């Protein structure tokens, strides 16, 4: 195993007293000095800056790019406008998930993909193996840093640094070649927290200049740094899936309740299409549910879930939710068994703790 990599912001994390951990081969802060709970609150109420440079980035370019991507991803990108960001799954032929990704459409011959850190190499190989037509695929990950600025004050902070009219940038849209504090960036109105916010990509060499500028601009607006721990809790509250938990080689998009991102009737055949159609027809063995603990206890990944004393599935992600002050979990459960009860039991250290069903997402921001 090679040494975990450092992002351009490594020294910043140390100065901010980040507790560094190895995550997907990267040294990143799990939290800073104020702690995870405060970082969650500040993201919901004000704004937080996250180093997400571990994420992978690919460029896909050439005449046949759109046709190639249509074959590779579950969502239908043919209707996407230039400048739109599309969330999609990438599946194996058996419907299992390679990764969940963001697809940035520059135009029909030029796309930018953002993939999970842990899957970057696997994804790149998978895309390369399946390459058809006139398409040039490039792994930009080693050269790019990424900062996520998340929270209701994000726009006000970022607007101080650019002449780009940010109010005009809609959710799940992006602009290339935006000068942010003089740094050439790709800016998208996206995020993994359930809040308004931006994800900003730039070259590693410019990364510190970008960080410092955002940091200074955010100072008057109570900007905090937030780590991986807060990021995971925020995405759970917003019921956003995490690869390896709600999605995997064995867990399909339909299992994870992501059918709206699967164009089952897409006219261009895509990897996994037949298998997923079949799965839908046959009925799902497991489906994703939201749970809220009735009895106090922390539901954690892998804990069994029971109904009437019988095991009906497992917790895929669970945590204390600082925003709701409740213990919440997403669970993959047998739909028939889950549908016939009002309550389930989560086995925590072999003891059953009562939990009830709750609608996903657990948290939804108020839109202005």
């Amino acid at each position: 195993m090679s040494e975990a990599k450092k992002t351009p912001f490594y020294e910043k994390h140390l100065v901010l007293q980040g507790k560094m951990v190895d995550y997907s081969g990267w040294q990143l802060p799990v939290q800073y000095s104020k702690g995870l709970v405060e970082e969650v609150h500040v993201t919901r109420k004000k704004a937080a800056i996250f180093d997400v440079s571990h994420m992978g980035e690919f460029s896909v370019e050439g005449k046949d790019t759109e046709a190639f991507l249509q074959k590779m991803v579950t969502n239908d990108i043919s209707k996407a406008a230039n400048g739109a960001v599309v969330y999609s799954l990438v599946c194996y032929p058996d419907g299992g998930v390679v990764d969940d990704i963001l697809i940035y459409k520059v135009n029909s011959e030029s796309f930018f993909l953002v993939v999970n850190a842990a899957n970057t190499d696997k994804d790149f190989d998978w895309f390369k193996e399946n390459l058809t037509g006139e398409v040039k695929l490039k792994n930009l990950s080693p050269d790019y840093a990424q900062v996520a600025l998340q929270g209701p004050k994000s726009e006000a902070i970022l607007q101080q640094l650019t002449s780009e009219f940010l109010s005009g940038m809609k959710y799940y849209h992006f602009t290339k070649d935006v000068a942010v504090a003089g740094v050439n960036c790709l800016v998208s109105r996206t995020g993994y927290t359930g809040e308004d916010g931006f994800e900003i990509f730039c070259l590693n060499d410019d990364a510190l200049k970008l960080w410092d500028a955002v940091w200074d601009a955010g100072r008057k607006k109570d900007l905090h740094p937030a780590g991986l721990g807060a990021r995971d809790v925020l995405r759970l509250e917003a019921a956003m899936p995490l690869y390896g938990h709600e999605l995997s080689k064995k867990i399909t998009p339909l299992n994870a309740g992501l059918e709206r991102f699967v164009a089952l009737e897409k006219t261009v055949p895509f990897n996994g299409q037949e298998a997923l159609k079949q799965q839908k027809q046959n009925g799902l063995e497991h489906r994703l549910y939201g749970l809220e603990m009735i009895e106090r206890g922390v539901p954690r990944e892998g804990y069994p879930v029971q109904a009437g004393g019988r095991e009906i599935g497992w917790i895929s992600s669970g945590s204390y939710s600082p925003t709701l002050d409740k213990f919440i979990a997403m669970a993959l459960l047998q739909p028939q068994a889950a549908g016939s009860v009002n309550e389930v039991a989560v086995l925590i250290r072999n003891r059953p703790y009562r939990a009830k069903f709750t609608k996903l997402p657990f948290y939804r921001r108020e839109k202005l």
Partner: protein
Amino acid sequence: MTYKVIDGLRYTKKHEWVRQEGGVAVVGLCDYAQDKLGEIVFVELPAVGAAVEAGKSVAVVESVKAVADLYSPLSGTVTEINEVLFDQPEIINRDPYGEGWVYKVGIADEAELDHLMDKAAYEEFIIKEEEE
């Protein structure tokens, strides 16, 4: 990073502290451990009257990210638990050596206390652990 360590207490290698009050030992989690865990959101405590054995897990403390067992420093019987922690487990973070105490054990064998570290030994121990 410096961690609070209090004179007059005894300490275990698993970062529990023990305060002798007559025939009873008050047990809690050290500052070092609460800091490593982060914000504590849940505790599972032994029943009053339960027999505990030195070195065995008797309680569980959970932060948002982690689960930690508390091992009994002594053998004996649980005489009292800090029930306030059920609703406010974060007290352990705020005041690990005071209001954040976890449970009390009737001391069966006072010699067991001698196996535990004093302040100086424990301070040295956490410095070594930090280096690893």
